[in-house]
């Protein structure tokens, strides 16, 4: 199971990185969304995997009665998901506003901060 998950995360990473290598910022954004899933799966798998038993202690017991899934990675992933979503939302609006202001989603055409025709530094003194 863990092996399958490890390979699946590899696929997630590959797809996400492929998308992020695009010139089109909207693809990069999709890549970021997938990247967060990839990372979350990795965190989850690192905590080792058990099937189907959620880490909930039954009523009247002080401990889980059977082997349960590792709760810590779940907590970490929950934190990470929410953070990643907050970033995703910000980036989306950033992309949206960039498109509004700059009129393109091609990063090669967006070069305002580092313009291609920037003057060279002056020589002399």
């Amino acid at each position, binding site marked *: 199971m863990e092996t399958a998950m490890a390979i699946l995360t590899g696929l997630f990473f590959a797809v996400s990185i492929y998308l992020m290598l695009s010139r089109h910022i909207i693809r990069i954004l999709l890549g970021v969304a997938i990247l967060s899933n990839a990372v979350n799966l990795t965190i989850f798998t690192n*905590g080792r995997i058990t099937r189907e038993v959620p880490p909930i202690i039954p009523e009247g017991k002080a401990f889980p009665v059977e082997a349960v899934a590792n709760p810590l990675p779940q907590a970490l992933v929950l934190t990470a998901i929410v953070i990643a979503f907050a970033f995703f939302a910000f980036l989306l609006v950033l992309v949206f506003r960039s498109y509004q202001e700059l009129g393109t989603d091609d990063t090669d055409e967006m070069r305002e901060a580092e313009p291609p025709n920037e003057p060279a530094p002056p020589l002399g003194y």
Partner: protein
Amino acid sequence: MALDASYDVDISQAMVVELPPLADWLVVAPLVVGFVFGALCLMTRKDTGRQPFVAITGLLAMLAADIGLFWHVYTNGTVVMTMGRWLPPFGITFAADMLGALLALVTGILGFAGGVYALQDISRTGRRYGFYPFLLLMLSGVTAAFLTGDIFNLYVWFEVLLIASFGLLVLGSEREQLDGATKYAFLNLIATTLFLLAVAYIYGVFGTLNMADISRKAASVRDSGPLFTITAMLLFAFAMKAAAFPLNFWLPASYHTPRIVVSGLFAGLLTKVGVYALLRIFLTLFGAERDILAGTIAVIAALTMVLGAMGALAQNDIRRLLGYLVISGIGSMLAGLALGSATGLSGAVLYAVHSMIVMTALYFLVGIMVERMKVFTLREAGGLYSSAPWLAALALMLFLSVSGLPPFSGLWPKALLVKASLDVGAWWLAFAILLSGLLTTIAVARVFAFSFWRERDTAQKGAGEVQPAPAATSGAMAGSLTALLLLTVAVGVYPEPVVRVTDRIAAELKAPSRYVEAVFPPGSEPLTTEQTEP
């Protein structure tokens, strides 16, 4: 709640029983203050007249908390506190050693200076849309990153400071800001995500997230787990955060785009969090891996220093020039990390403190220069020596300081680092440090010659015959700049107090067991996992 009685549980096995001494609460005081005042500023954001006072009060309180914490750590040693009173490593531990406390203190100073500077530099719209909340939360994030003792928690603080920095970066929504922010945001997101990924692997190998716990377990795990690859990945992630060559793309792409006070604070704080993380990871946690990676780090350091200084020489825009000086300075700090000796580490930390103050001050200076000249390119600049001699004096001092020339703070870390390099025969690293100093000198001397010495009209050649009336510089901007300048002069003239602190930090970093023992006092090992089923 009524269940309490039914469980016969020995609390002392899970929790710290006695309350920690009151002074220990100082370890969380800066960020509590930061968050509280951040929230207050958010609530008062529409009252742009009064909000700055709330913010300045908050920044002052934060600085006071940082001073208190620093003093407490200085006198009593590392302060450790685990949240929720859980025993480490089960809760999230905050551990303020000298390194964290010192950097937090400098953060507090820069935050306050920036808050004052921003009184003039940030418009009402900027305040209304969250400048001060962003600032306070970024400072809280930075401070918490310096103080936390939990590696996943460190990631969370990285994200807090990163998202707050996004907010500061885009404030204004100018075209170049949006482009700069896009590059900054995506590349930094990649870096923090890689950090998170490395944390995941660390958890998989160690089963723990507490840094002290990782440190003490590293030796036993080293043979079975892929520690070297994981640490290389951490090096990658933090080198990117620290803007080390060749992962520094995001910094020159973005640091010149926001308001100058924002650039200044970024320059002072953000990359240094990356440097801090590198020091923490590679000295406190994975010393053995540092020994293997030292050569690589040294090469990265040399390239960063020299190419950073060359980048500064290649700029027409003064603000971008400063961005490259930030990068060049990062190289010097990494050189200290690569050397790893007490002198080298002391030099690296001293350089970090110096660079935080001086780089922020330089941006503040350029803010005033641009305000008076209305241009920020070397080709068009000029005339400041005549119109603002006092500014020229301040500028010259900062330029000398950043070049590592006496009698300012830049000299000492440079001397320590060169000495440390020669100690181990790394003459080429010493050469790189000195060469970057020379190139930096040339770069800033050109800025001085062009924008101060040169008269304005000869520079413009009739392009714009309207000589803008030199605007009076506001007291808030000049004041915070002068305050930072005085610090670099003080450190330059009498470095002993700071060097004593950085020497102690170097000694602490060289002996990670002291950090571990502060978190896990010897002889108080909890036996939690031995619990029997009821």
